[in-house]
């Protein structure tokens, strides 16, 4: 897993909480920083894809590992 500046564990949280928590965390980060999100909600895969597309933040990585979903989002 590439380097990240902050990590957000959204395990056990269902839609729309992972996205909302991610948005809140990203707000406090600087442009160019990377947020690593861990989620267990399978719906979050599509959600983060849409989130990145609609907010202009780059979804650098999206994968499943150890039964959880991992996302790397770079703040634009």
């Amino acid at each position, binding site marked *: 897993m590439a380097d990240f500046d902050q990590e957000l564990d959204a395990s*056990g*949280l*269902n*839609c*729309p*909480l992972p*996205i*909302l928590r*991610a*948005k*809140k965390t990203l707000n406090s980060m600087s442009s160019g920083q990377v947020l690593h999100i861990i989620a*267990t*909600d399978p719906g979050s895969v599509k959600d983060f894809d*849409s*989130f990145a597309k*609609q*907010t*202009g933040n780059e979804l650098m990585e999206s994968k499943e590992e150890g039964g959880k979903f991992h996302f790397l989002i770079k703040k634009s």
Partner: protein
Amino acid sequence: MEQKKLAIIATKGSLDWAYPPFILASTAAALGYEVQIFFTFYGLQLLKKDLSLEVTPLGNPGMPMPMGMDKWFPILGMTLPGMQGMMTAMMKQKMKKKGVASIEELRELCIEAEVKMVACQMTVDLFDMEQSQFIGGIEYAGAAAFFEFAGESDICLYI
């Protein structure tokens, strides 16, 4: 990219109907939308300081029930005293178990995300409600005022 607008008109006050406006509003806000919700009629229940939202399967044939009850439990049974309270408690428990936010939490998230919440002044007067019963930070207005925003919105939903 120009900011998109979402207008929601919330007219229902039961626990199951409370979720769609708050989830849609908070998600849209997270995606960068400007969001306003107009609470009218029973939607006003969602703005009360002390939320006591309930849900009942009575008259709700689409509501799934545990233990396959919707297949064999007689409809009259749902009118028994305590049934509504029990169903509400079971629904809330299920939400918690599945990691779904409570209405209080979702409403808080909406406020944080600067979703503008507007209470229909007419309905407040109609049902003899007081502003002190509602949470702070909301506006009171009529339909015409809301149309200013709704008319410009990209998405307008009636819930």
